[in-house]
């Protein structure tokens, strides 16, 4: 049913996630098998409670699946120890969250290089410059997060996600707190990373306009992957969402 991609960056096999026990248990994911293509921007959409955030958390190794497997590249991350998971997040994964993305005591530049600093790695200056130039934040690097606008903060978070050249970037409602202009700037920036540098990005969003920037949209409903769309546009996505609701 779902397209097989040429090169797989991450995939799930029969992924189930159950919260709670007994009568109070909630099945957030009901056995999802999906592939995420390398150098693609994949959007995951669905109503709230559809399980899209849970899927992202399981993919990123932040949450532990009840059943099934998750691969980042060739590595089955469900078998990794806490320490190796931490290293995986540090070295192979980038994150952009909806809010509270930045450490308030660090400057924009220090926030961007945070994963490299945590790993004790040197910054690739040329790559850093390139990322900064695409964010358009060069003159804001010495500022603390509180001195940046919401859009700027999210772009700093985006730059942080990219600067360590991770295998995959997970973005959880990255435009959720932004106005439409800032949203578009951020999405263009993420899109550019995929098109220009072959970065793999998986993004959870409920915003059709945001999903319109993706190469592929996966639709979730009640913990199941129910549909997908290649080369989407915002209008087609809205139509599909309507048809899914009915």
């Amino acid at each position, binding site marked *: 049913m779902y397209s097989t991609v040429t090169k797989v960056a991450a995939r799930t096999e029969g992924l189930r996630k159950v919260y709670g026990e007994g009568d109070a248990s909630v099945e957030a994911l009901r056995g999802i098998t999906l592939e995420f293509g390398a150098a693609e921007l994949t959007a995951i959409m669905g109503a709230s409670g559809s399980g899209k955030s849970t899927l992202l*958390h399981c993919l*990123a190794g*932040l*949450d532990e699946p009840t059943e099934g497997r998750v691969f980042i590249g060739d590595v089955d991350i469900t078998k990794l120890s*806490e*320490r190796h998971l*931490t*290293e995986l*997040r*540090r*070295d192979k*994964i*980038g*994150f952009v*969250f909806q809010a*509270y*993305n*930045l*450490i*308030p*005591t*660090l400057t924009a530049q*220090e926030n961007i290089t*945070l*994963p490299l*600093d*945590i*790993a*004790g790695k040197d910054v690739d200056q040329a790559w850093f410059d390139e990322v900064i130039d695409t964010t358009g934040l060069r003159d804001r690097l010495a500022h603390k997060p509180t001195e940046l606008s919401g859009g700027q903060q999210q772009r700093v978070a985006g730059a*942080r996600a990219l600067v360590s050249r991770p295998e995959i970037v997970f973005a959880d409602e990255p435009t959720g707190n932004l106005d439409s202009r800032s949203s578009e700037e951020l999405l263009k920036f993420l899109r550019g990373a995929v098109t220009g540098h072959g970065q793999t990005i998986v993004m959870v969003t409920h915003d059709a306009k945001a999903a319109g920037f993706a190469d592929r949209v996966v639709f979730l409903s009640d913990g199941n992957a129910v549909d997908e769309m290649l080369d989407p546009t915002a209008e087609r996505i809205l139509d599909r969402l309507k048809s899914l609701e009915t």
Partner: protein
Amino acid sequence: MFRATVKSLLARKLRLLLTALAVVLGVGFTAGTFILTDTALKSFDDLFGNVYAGTAVVVQPQTAFKPGAAGDGSGTTGTPIPANVLPKVQAVDGVAAADGSVSSMPVQIVDPATGDVIRNGGAPQFGNSWDPDSTQLMTVAGESPSGPDQVAVDAATASDHDLSVGQRVRIITPTGSGEFTISGIVKFGGSNSFLGATLAIFDLPTAQKLFESVGRFDFIYVKGAGGVDPDQLAARISGVLPKGYEAITGASAAAQQQDEVSQGLGFLRTGLLVFGFVALFVGAFIIFNTFNIVVTQRSRELALFRALGATRRQVLSSVLIESTIVGLIASFVGVLVGAFLAVGLKALIGALGLKLPPTALVISPRTIIVSLVLGTGITVAAAIAPARRASRVAPIEALRESVAPSASIRRRVIFGSLVTLAGAVALFAGLFGSVSNAGLVVGLGAGLTFLGVAMLSPLFARPLAAAIGRPFRGKISGKLGSENANRNPRRTASTAAALMIGLGLVAFVAVFAASLKTSATATLSKVLAADLTLNSDQFSPFSPQLAKDLAKNPEYSVVAPFRQAEAHVEQSDTFVTAIDPATAPQVMNVEMDSGSLADLSEPNTVIVSRTEAEGKGFAVGSTVNMKFAATGVQPLRVVGTFETNGLLNDYTISLATYDTNVEQVVDQAVFVDVASGVPFDKAKADLTAFVKQNYPSVNVSDQAEFKQQQLAAIDQVFAIVYVLLLLSVIISLFGIVNTLGLSIYERVRELGLLRAVGMSRRQVKRMIRVEAVIIAVLGAVLGLAIGILFGWAMQQALKDLGINTLTVPVGQLVAMLIVAALLGVVAAIWPARRAAKLNVLEAITYE
């Protein structure tokens, strides 16, 4: 509102526990001090009550004053009662029996197993005569001593050193040493031991001979016939006594002794309470800090209360009620902890020689009330400022994402400077001025100074913390930790301030002790000229017979005894030293400012130290009215003034003058010069062997050893102070734990983010640890700075007493910094573990 307060308290049990702990320890120490001293008093009361239970009247010499608890060690201070007084007393109507008694100190029992004198810390070593009619002593094994060859010893000494009836022991008395057979084991007033003292009991004629009291008594104990009123009996006996003696009832003799003891215990209580108050003061900082942080964290909740219609007063009282509950619970637990601490303190002073008889702990209502009032009062007082801040939270803040605005920095600077200034003024007035109750004023000044500096500390917390954090910034965890320490300078500063107080006092003591030691060494090097010094451990005096023995030996060219006695000059208590003006110049360098040392050989003369002479206006030719216990006021002519030194006290008289005015002559030290032609090592070895054989309690030291011994004595005193200050340092550690714990609670999302982007648990722990170390070192740096200043002020104030040079023990202070950093690491253990354990997903989605 009250229910909401209680609920919010219970919801954060751990915070409650940590906050309360700071109060618990301070209250515990204070309560422990009261419990200990009350218990000690009770056991003394019991003891003396027993001792005098069967004695209706005591006849004793009148003395000009009662030597204090820190007496010079003489067994008796008045002129003994002539033996012919006894029959007169016995003839008085209503007297059933009357017996004379003699006592002496020190009378030392030599442990047959080790050959050393038996001594329990600083406790005295008594010798007494056996009184067949007295209820003081009871034989529990064997027989009472009889004849020149027999002795009875107290039960505690016997069991501690495996002495048994029939065994031979060597005993050192004022007239020399001899071997005796143990005839019996005795209890004193129903107790195995007389407060740790060793007792050697001889029959009356033997005791009189050994104690140089033939034909004399120190006391006459009278038993009344049935139905005779002791007061009337005492009055009747007084009628037959010659001048200079008094008859008092057994009950008032017991009361007199109890008074002396309670006076001594009063000093102990005051001394210990000081440390308890310091601990409470430190605890107050922690309470203040905790409530401040909590109010900040709860500002949205408080604003919601306000938006729902709660008045400012209600918010204010909700925080104050919370603090009252914390204070009450903590104080109550503190009293319980105090009972345990009292047991520990009892062991501590027991190690110093004051062995208290085993008695049930006395927890008086006063102890409980004072503890509850003090603990709760301090907690509520510390919470007032945070409560006021809480009441100012505007309802609108419930809807905003902002932190409550903090009071203006300018007001803090002005107020903090004023408090610091007031503290400094009080401190200097107490040290240099002539205020009454100087100790209290100095204490108040020190407290205010700490408070003021704590208020000002947020100003320099940022640069200082940044500087301290610099070495850690190489790694990201260190950099983040150091940034976190700088994030809220007020919080960091007031957490550090708690440690500042404890370490400030430790540093002060270290600086003062080092200066004292430097000065003591310098003075001793200058003053001490004797080749060898004989003195007893714990500064207890010994028999003058030793000096007489040595004088006959041609190996020694000079044998100069040195004596000491308590005396009063113009109402103030002082110790007068006595030397032989003829030999003194050969064993010590006394620098005379005026007059001459040789003139001291004239009768009834005195030389006075420069500081005392200047202070009291004495000069050569003037008269010092010195009151001796035995002989009352004696006018002494000043024949010289001398530069204050470490050996001679403010007033120094000749041995001859001393002997006529002091009842029991004992030597405090003997200075010896080796005769020319005799190899020093041989002379020293011979002397050591002789002393070891005959006077085991006496040490022989050459100049270097003597200095070392004096320094060790200083160290020993200060070691106790360090131990007591440790309490405050421990309390301040709880403050660091508390602040870090609360900060983590505030930064959960941030921690989640760091973990999400790949920070390992170890790195998180390191980050927290760095923050803790920075806080601790900041506190230490401020504390050391204040401590050095206090030390300097103290040294300046005591310059006249011979503390001439300020010595800053750099090595020791650096060690304190390192220890502070390590304490920071310890304080971080629990918060770091908690931070590292946070569930990443829960943390990043935390609201």
